[in-house]
């Protein structure tokens, strides 16, 4: 079996150009099944566009994306039921209760025994007392947990997370991270996480891909990145990359 076929996500020479701007400029990477990878980059680095192409929501200008062996977006219906995502760019309908929303999405994803699955997720994510509350009346933290429940409904093998803890207080964010970690271990899920939060990436990710202006600037484990740039934190590494300091310079 070749590397592309055995990867949960395989991105090859991926390009996305809009009329006058290049959002993603020829990036390639492969994610092994069960791995958790952070996609780091400043605003406009191309993280969200990359994730959108992996989800099949955006058609690449050139290059290919394969998820669980299916080419996106052409073959997306072969694998969409095995994936899920959470993003700050989307919400669940506000007037529907959390239970109604979860039940609709569970049916869309073909989940069996919907009531039991919702009860299980509500218990895991501490949502039991909010299940019958309109989603729009939840606090930011409760909404994030509800969105996380939606993204885990179908027990996805590939989970794409775009800023999953944005706008959460540190305690809730930490709580969400621990649930994500637990889910990945329990289901051997492949997780790709776009984030600005370096603590989050450092804690969760075994590999970090740093993007800048649509290109991959660096790609390694957090430990090796820290060593290479001679920095104590990923935030410093991120700043070095964002400000154009090469690791040799940064290490001096």
């Amino acid at each position, binding site marked *: 079996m070749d590397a592309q076929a055995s990867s949960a996500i395989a991105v090859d020479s991926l390009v996305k150009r*809009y009329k006058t701007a290049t959002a993603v400029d020829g990036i390639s990477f492969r994610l092994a099944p069960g791995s958790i990878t952070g996609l780091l980059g400043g605003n406009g680095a191309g993280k969200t566009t990359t994730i959108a192409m992996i989800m099949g*929501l955006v058609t690449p200008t050139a290059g290919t994306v394969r998820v669980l062996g299916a080419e996106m977006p*052409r073959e997306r219906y072969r694998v969409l039921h095995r994936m899920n995502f959470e993003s700050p760019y989307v919400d669940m309908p506000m007037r529907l209760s959390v239970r*109604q929303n979860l039940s*609709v999405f569970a*049916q869309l994803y*073909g989940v069996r025994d919907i009531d039991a699955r919702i009860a299980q997720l509500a218990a895991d994510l501490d949502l039991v007392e909010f299940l019958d509350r309109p989603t729009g009346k939840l606090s930011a933290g409760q909404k994030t947990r509800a969105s996380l429940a939606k993204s885990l409904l179908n027990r996805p093998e590939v989970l794409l997370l775009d800023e999953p803890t944005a706008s959460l207080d540190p305690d809730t964010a930490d709580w969400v991270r621990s649930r994500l970690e637990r889910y990945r271990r329990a289901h051997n899920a492949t997780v790709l996480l776009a984030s600005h939060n370096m603590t989050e990436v450092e804690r969760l990710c075994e590999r970090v891909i740093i993007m800048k202006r649509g290109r991959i600037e660096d790609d390694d484990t957090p430990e090796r990145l820290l060593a290479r740039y001679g920095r104590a934190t990923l935030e410093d590494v991120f700043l070095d990359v964002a400000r154009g300091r090469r690791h040799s310079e940064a290490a001096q």
Partner: protein
Amino acid sequence: MSDTDSGLDFSLNRVAAMVRRYWYLLSSSWPRILDLVYWPTVQMLMWGFLQLYVAQNAGFFARAGGVFIGSVLLWDILFRGQLGFSISFLEEMYARNLGNIMMSPLRPVEFISALMIMSIVRLSIGMVPVSLLAIAFFGFNLWSFGLALAAFFANLILTSWSVGIFVAGLLLRNGLGAESMAWTIMFLFLPLTCVYYPVAVLPHWLQYVAWSLPPTYVFEGMRALLIDHVFRGDLMIEALAFNMVLFAAASLAFLKLLQSAREQGSLLQAGE
């Protein structure tokens, strides 16, 4: 086309999920339900009283009782059918839920099927009470058309879905910037499909345009029924043929616009 690989895989379960989602929304909001009944009632009452007044002063209208009120009720089927379809779609954009839907296994054909079902549900909530009020106020019984009403309804709802599908494509491609199209596009049909007057009133060249639009056949058919007491099955068959072409063209346009939306990256951030 990138969306055609899904064409043969249709799940009633997923359609039911979407219908449930819209029903939850509708049933949780009394202003939404009131809105379905309010404007058709106002229209029906205004045209009904106008017809009563005109009938007392003109022999033709006295003979052709119910033409205005019949026109307004059939027009509302056309207009509200499209609006019911488009509003359900717009609700996804207002709720910023389109990304969730497009990332789910729901196929475009299932999404459209759910929107068509919801347009009938919304139309029924609005039109059934209004048709009963027309009996109470003016003695005009739309239901007495019988089989003709079924033919009128089928043709009008098919046109409304075609227009709704096209508008949904525009919204996917252009975001909420195209929202006004959802509310106003059907008014282009109002003068051209001769809702309140016969096709013969139009300039000769414009009559060709009118006869290329399926609702024109329905409104002519309704006048034939009310004035001449004849059901024109031939007009209904012609309307159906034009509707098939219109529906196919709208579906194709929707898929092309969806493909373009994927290329332009407008699905994830379907805002303004």
